[in-house]
């Protein structure tokens, strides 16, 4: 038997979907799990945070961090994993780019508190909890603002086969090689290079099942998105919303690239586009606002406010 690889898996603020996707390698678990010496994985094994903190620095081979850092505790766990692990993986889109919960940066944290804790349809005059809970960061910063990562594995969630490829490479000590194509490469729909006459919301009409959804007027981010998903949605009649982020180099601005893509497909006047695309920031920066240029300006604004 190959020697076990030590691994610590941490969860920031997230949905656990990336870990569910790991579980979904199904019977391959029987091959992979025995090769891993799990030092920390709160949802699966019974070690506590103090156990993780007690390991010597760089004593664990691989660290995996799922989710974004919403609380001080999340930031602490992220930094602890970085300190204890030789290789650190940003696991999933939240960890790579901020993810869907990064959309909270569209608003001020006080406005978030209002609907969550102070007043909503089922309560009124509540207060923000503060006893035995970690303080909430006023803004979502990309995880790479706090630590350096060695590997980025995007996807909401990364597919099970992608995770298996990555784990196998790590266990064998090899570089992870990933194809650079966009979603369109995996889409079976036909492109006819015809201009988009009008932008349609996704519930409108019934799409031709054989033709490019974007050319039919449905906003689809496939041509600006890394195709590690292998086209799961587009091949089932569903437009891409960009959940794997941009293709390599992944530091490029996914939202800006998506808008530029739309511009080249839909030669509409700016006023028409504005009218027909009701929520550009929510369409084009849904998964990566905190790590985009726009999102970075938002974070700087927050820093300026807090510096006062």
């Amino acid at each position, binding site marked *: 038997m190959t020697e076990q690889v030590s691994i610590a898996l941490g969860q920031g603020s997230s949905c656990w979907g990336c870990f569910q996707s790991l579980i979904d390698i199904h019977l391959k678990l029987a091959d992979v799990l025995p090769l891993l010496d799990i030092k920390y994985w709160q*949802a699966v094994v019974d070690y506590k945070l103090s156990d993780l903190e007690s390991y010597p620095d760089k004593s664990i081979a691989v660290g995996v961090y799922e989710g974004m850092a919403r609380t001080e505790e999340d930031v602490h766990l992220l930094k602890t994993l970085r300190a204890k692990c030789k290789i650190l993986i940003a696991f999933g889109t939240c960890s790579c780019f901020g993810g869907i919960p990064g959309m909270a940066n569209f608003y001020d944290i006080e406005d*978030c508190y209002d609907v969550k804790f102070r007043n909503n349809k089922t309560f009124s005059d509540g207060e923000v909890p503060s006893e035995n809970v970690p303080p909430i960061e006023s803004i979502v910063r990309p995880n790479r603002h706090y630590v350096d990562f060695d590997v980025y594995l995007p996807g909401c969630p990364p597919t099970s086969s992608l995770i298996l490829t990555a784990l196998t490479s790590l266990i064998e000590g090899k570089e992870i090689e990933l194809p650079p194509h966009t979603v369109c490469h995996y889409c079976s729909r036909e492109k006819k290079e015809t201009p988009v006459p009008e932008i349609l919301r996704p519930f409108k009409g019934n799409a031709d099942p054989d033709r490019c959804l974007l050319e039919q007027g449905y906003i689809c981010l496939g041509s600006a998105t890394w195709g590690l998903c292998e086209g799961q949605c587009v091949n089932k009649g569903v437009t891409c919303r960009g959940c794997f982020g941009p293709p390599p180099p992944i530091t490029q601005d996914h939202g800006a690239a998506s808008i530029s893509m739309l511009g080249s497909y839909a030669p509409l006047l700016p006023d028409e586009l504005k009218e027909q695309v009701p929520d550009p920031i929510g369409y084009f920066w849904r998964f990566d606002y905190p790590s985009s240029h726009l999102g970075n300006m938002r974070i700087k604004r927050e820093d300026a406010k807090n510096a006062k």
Partner: protein
Amino acid sequence: MPNDKVIRVDPVTRLEGHGALTIKLGSDGKVKDVQFNVGSTRFFEKFLEGRPMEEAPRITPRICGICPIPHHLASVKAVEAAWDVTPPPAAVKLRRLLIEAKQLSSHAIHFYALAAPDFVFGPFADPSVRNVAAVLKHLPDVAVQAIKLMEFGQELCRTVGAKAIHPTTAIPGGMLSPLKEDERDEWLKKVPEMLENINKTVELAKNVVNMYIDVVTKVAVTPTYYIGLVNDGKLDIYDGKVRVMDPDGKTVAEFEPKDYTNYYGEHIPGHSYATHIYYKPAGYPDGIWRANTLARCNVADEMATPLANEALKEMREVVGRPSHHTFAYHWARIIEMVQAAEWIKTLLEDPEIVSTDVKLSDVEPKAGNGVGIVEAPRGTLLHNYECDEKGIITKANLIVATNNNIAGIEKSLMDAARFVFEQKGHEKLKLPDPLVKT
């Protein structure tokens, strides 16, 4: 009080989220306070504002990676309620297939990966072995049947939902993708093996319950209200009315989702970002209710499918109705797995499941207020959105499944803490030899 002792469990493990436990003991050894501290939140209700309402079913699944399908469906139902849209019958059947498949895989992962290690290795086993990786090592046959059930559920979700985690095919007015005949045929072929694994799971669960009956009937027996969806009195996870049962077993309310604000109260605790949901007419904390498997089995008159209903009768003979036994949640989980398996078979055998008439083409947004409710594996899940005339969300209220249970978890933890620290009851429990000795 200088002599007070605080016990902190951080994090609570085998939980797919952020929880810690704080127990305060007085100098007299009495349990003074128990807190279940949920340490994170992400503000979905705020950032849904401003989004086109049809995008909500594509955003809200990210609330939970284990139960993204119930979120996808509660969300699309809320949009359809606000816009007065009724999807075609075949689309409803596909959605039901999707949610039953999810119920199956979620209950399997919970029973085998989160709960079973305690029963297989015993509650006092070393933390390093009390996990699913050790189950795989010591009981490979059991692990394989668990993995095959999870695989069946998750992969069926992928077929219907495009993605097993964070599905995308439900849209206001129906489904974006019909089930193809060859896909249906492939799934039908896999049903017999799945049913065989369900039977093995039922046998294993019965065995475990018998071995641990002293724990089931003595630890954390906590009377609360219960909430769950019923359809014509039967347990249903996709559609129906919300029923509330009081601690004595009396049905005190049965209402349409749209009327929820008359019955749902939400308490904002000072020590948890997950709020406490309760039965509003009874007030807080008297009206604390629980949701999830046992709650559904309590409120329903019967199960919707025959084998599951036999299993429910068997459980009721032992623990009664309502059952306040927190450990009976595992038993109820198995009964619901049986119902999910029976539903999946029935739906796959229904010729309409491959109908291509699954989506309306004339859906139009309008100003409205819609509520959508389904049962997530962990309890009743509610999405409520308001939108303007263009269909842009102006207000959102989400009552997620787990929040129905947080106050109840705290209450049953208090009972368990008193049992352990005040009565030393755990020393007198009849515990079996572990299935696997480590």
